């Protein structure tokens, strides 16, 4: 038997031991390859994703490479750790260290090559499926499977070099240990647990302050807070796992009435060592999972926003200008001619909206004329409004407002012209997007509208009203290029401190295309990052368990002899595994929960959409995955320690 044959047989005959390492490598190759297939897709170069910058996808790919290198390195380390006893025998029999590193190198190359082959094979087989999902999410017409050499070469190059470097690196730079230590195996419980009360308190305080800041975040404080919160949370989480958790466990241990009761002693005592040995890994897993949760959550939020976009923005184009806007005729004419040039059918409605002071609130109210509104409603195909003299109707500014306003009955007098109105209805659908109409907008009958001769009290400091031109366009998605020069001026003005232009223009099609491309980007980058991170976070825990399996088995052997029933053994295993799985996840979940409360606050201010439902769905899905994973590992673990 030659040395090469020895390495080969080592792998082939011990395939079960190598399986974990193989699976880890296989999955990262698999994910990487599928993603590369997308990046190199010929349709991407033709710009099918609109403005999705390929730049960001490449960045994501680089992150993925770095991460999977780290990931392979980590699993390799855990794997070698688990095999110390075997290496000790070889060294004991007189193998040179150089030969040992050659052996590890050969084995890694064998496993690496097999996993690259299988990863690419499965990756190619599943990429059509992945393309179909991407096509559905991004609402593309067609995303065919293709064959080109680039993704193959890239994947092979990245991973082969990874395996070569990492196997050389991990053996050469492993600290040299005495054979006798290797023989006795890793004794992981030799250190006394130390924690500092001061750090424990810092940990919890930092996290709490971070949470409170997240709750207080508003639009104005957004930028300063987003600087501080991640730093606070990162430091806090680190100390939480290194000291605070130890501190809590120690507190529990001091209470014998709690600690010794109901066979709690063993699981609690174990937590000390789990935390001691895995504190840093828990910290990494928590951060990684938080990132994964955030990207999944953001995705869910964005998908909610895009799917609601249609109802939130019923109008294709909106032009809003002052009563004495000098550009009005010119702009409207140019928009109309552009629309006609494109052959898009539209329905133009012009509104004159007057501002008046309401006697009930003392604030301004925007008054719409019944016939103007009906003109627009007619083109929508919505039911018309019929108002008699003295009657009024609210215009809802959001979906929620429809419910709020439906109960409300207001008797008011429009002070400037002494017209009294009884408002007891609300229009049951959104007519205008919320950015256009004020919170106090009503419709009154044409007869009453004629009586509004005197302008708003605030005039001339405040505008006495505005002209509104709405274009209802059935094919609103295609209006991207309409009114581009006006849009640009508006966008420039927005960057200044005061908005001084006498007009405002909104192009729903254009906004939607921006939104859609941002959404596509997030989908592609976020889903990938989330998938890899979640996989990695789970695998880290798995490898750590795998490394300690021997000593755990010994522990359970003692316990079995002393007499624990099967049910109690399962319970002990559950109590042993549960915190390792769900403590980092739980903390990550709470972290991202607070992040999303902050996000919801901001979004509510900006766009008035609710992301709660989508988040609950997305997180429910993630929790379901984690629970499944937990039971899977628990099943394998019990099978292992039982015999």
């Amino acid at each position: 038997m030659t040395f090469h044959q020895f390495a080969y047989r080592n792998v082939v005959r011990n395939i079960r031991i190598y399986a974990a390492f193989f699976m880890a490598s296989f999955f990262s190759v698999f994910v990487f390859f599928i993603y590369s297939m997308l990046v190199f897709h010929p349709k991407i170069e033709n710009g099918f994703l609109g403005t999705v910058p390929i730049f960001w996808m490449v960045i994501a790919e680089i992150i993925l490479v770095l991460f999977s290198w780290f990931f392979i390195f980590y699993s390799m380390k855990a794997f070698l750790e688990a095999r110390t006893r075997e290496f000790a025998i070889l060294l004991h029999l007189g193998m040179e260290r150089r030969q040992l590193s050659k052996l590890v190198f050969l084995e890694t190359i064998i496993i690496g090559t097999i996993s690259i082959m299988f990863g690419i094979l499965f990756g190619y087989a599943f990429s059509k499926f992945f393309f179909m999902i991407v096509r559905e999410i991004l609402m593309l017409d067609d995303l065919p499977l293709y064959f080109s050499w680039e993704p193959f070469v890239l994947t092979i190059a990245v991973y082969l070099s990874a395996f070569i470097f990492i196997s050389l690196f991990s053996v050469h730079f492993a600290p040299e240990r005495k054979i006798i230590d290797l023989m006795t195996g890793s004794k992981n419980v030799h250190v006394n647990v130390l924690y500092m009360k001061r750090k424990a308190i810092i940990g919890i305080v930092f996290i709490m302050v971070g949470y409170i800041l997240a709750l207080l975040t508003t639009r104005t404080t957004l930028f300063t807070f987003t600087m501080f919160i991640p730093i606070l949370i990162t430091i806090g989480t680190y100390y939480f796992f290194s000291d605070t958790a130890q501190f809590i466990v120690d507190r529990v241990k001091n209470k014998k009435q709690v600690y010794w009761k109901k066979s709690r002693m063993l699981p609690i005592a174990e937590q000390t060592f789990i935390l001691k040995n895995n504190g840093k890994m828990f910290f990494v897993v928590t951060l990684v999972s938080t990132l994964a949760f955030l990207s999944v959550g953001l995705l869910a939020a964005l998908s909610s926003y895009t799917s609601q976009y249609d109802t939130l923005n019923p109008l294709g184009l909106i032009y809003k200008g002052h009563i004495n806007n000098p550009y009005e005729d010119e702009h409207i004419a140019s928009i109309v001619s552009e629309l006609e040039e494109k052959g898009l059918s539209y329905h133009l409605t012009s509104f004159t909206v007057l501002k008046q002071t309401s006697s009930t609130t003392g604030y301004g109210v925007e008054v719409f004329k019944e016939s103007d509104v009906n003109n627009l409603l007619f083109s929508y195909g919505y039911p018309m409004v019929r108002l008699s003299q003295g009657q009024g109707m609210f215009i809802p500014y959001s979906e929620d407002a429809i419910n709020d306003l439906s109960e409300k009955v207001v008797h008011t007098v429009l002070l400037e012209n002494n017209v009294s109105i009884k408002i007891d209805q609300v229009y049951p659908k959104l007519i205008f997007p919320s950015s256009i109409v004020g919170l106090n907008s009503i419709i009154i009958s044409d007869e009453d509208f004629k009586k509004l001769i005197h302008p708003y009290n605030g005039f001339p400091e405040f505008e006495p009203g505005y002209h509104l031109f709405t274009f209802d366009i059935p094919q609103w998605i295609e209006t991207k290029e309409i009114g581009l020069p006006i849009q640009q001026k508006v966008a420039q003005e927005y960057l200044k401190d005061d908005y001084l232009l006498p007009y405002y223009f909104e192009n729903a099609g254009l906004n939607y295309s921006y939104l859609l491309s941002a959404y596509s980007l997030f989908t592609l980058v976020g889903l990938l990052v989330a998938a890899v991170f979640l996989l990695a976070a789970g695998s880290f825990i798995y490898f750590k368990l795998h490394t300690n399996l021997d000593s755990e088995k010994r522990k359970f052997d003692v316990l079995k002899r002393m007499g624990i029933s099967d049910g109690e053994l399962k319970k002990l295993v559950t109590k042993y595994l549960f915190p390792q799985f769900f403590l980092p996840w739980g903390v990550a979940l709470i972290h991202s929960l607070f992040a999303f409360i902050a996000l919801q606050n901001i979004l509510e201010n900006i766009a008035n959409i609710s992301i709660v439902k989508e988040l609950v769905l997305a997180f429910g899905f993630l929790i379901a995955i984690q629970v499944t994973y937990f039971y899977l590992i628990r099943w394998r673990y019990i099978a292992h320690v039982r015999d």
Partner: protein
Amino acid sequence: MSILQVRDVTKVYEGKVTNRAINQLTFDVEKGEFLAIMGPSGSGKTTLLNLISTIDKPTSGEIIFNDIKPLNLNNTELAYFRRRELGFVFQDFNLLPMLTVEENIVLPLTLDQKPVQVMEERLQSLVNRLDLKSFLYKRPNEISGGQAQRVAIARALIHEPTIILADEPTGNLDSNNSREVLELLSKINKEKQATILMVTHDPIAASYCDRVLFIKDGEFFNEIYRDDRRQTFFQRILNVLSLLGGGKVGDLSSIRLP
């Protein structure tokens, strides 16, 4: 009154090579007895101990504890039986490294969900009797082998078992610690009338017992009872061992002497 009856026990390991580890072995253990089982390597001592510990089942024959037949119990009942009726002392102590000495001792009681007050009372009396006070809050890796074995004995005693099963309790200890542990075991045996069954290689350890049972190739070989002096008992044990080794008197080859 016998506390443990072993009746015609046979254990056959099936496999590629069938191996009869125990063959038609019969003996009794009386209450309050300190019994040693000796035999050369491969004589089936450990198999016998596993059978008595109920973690392995005999191919034929019966083992009866005080009218309880563990063979008739299901796995859960067996676990409860072991936890309440048996105490274990191992060669390599098998203390759990993440628990302190104190926690290791009360472990059998926490598994059985006894009230904390009971645990503390029993712990207190054992600590005084076995002199564990000085290292009660240390961890197993911070104490010496002799101390660790004392802790293991305390753990085997805390639930007041019917019988204590000791598997080479002095196998990993130096002579001083061995003596200490053996004296402790015989003290417990005398004072508390605890029944102890000890498997050992070591004739010195065996000489502390009331009776020594010799087995060879899984079969009963001989048994001798203790007389007044430990020295002569030791000498008689050596004589039997030399016979055990192959029939030639004076040949001690198969036995590891101290």
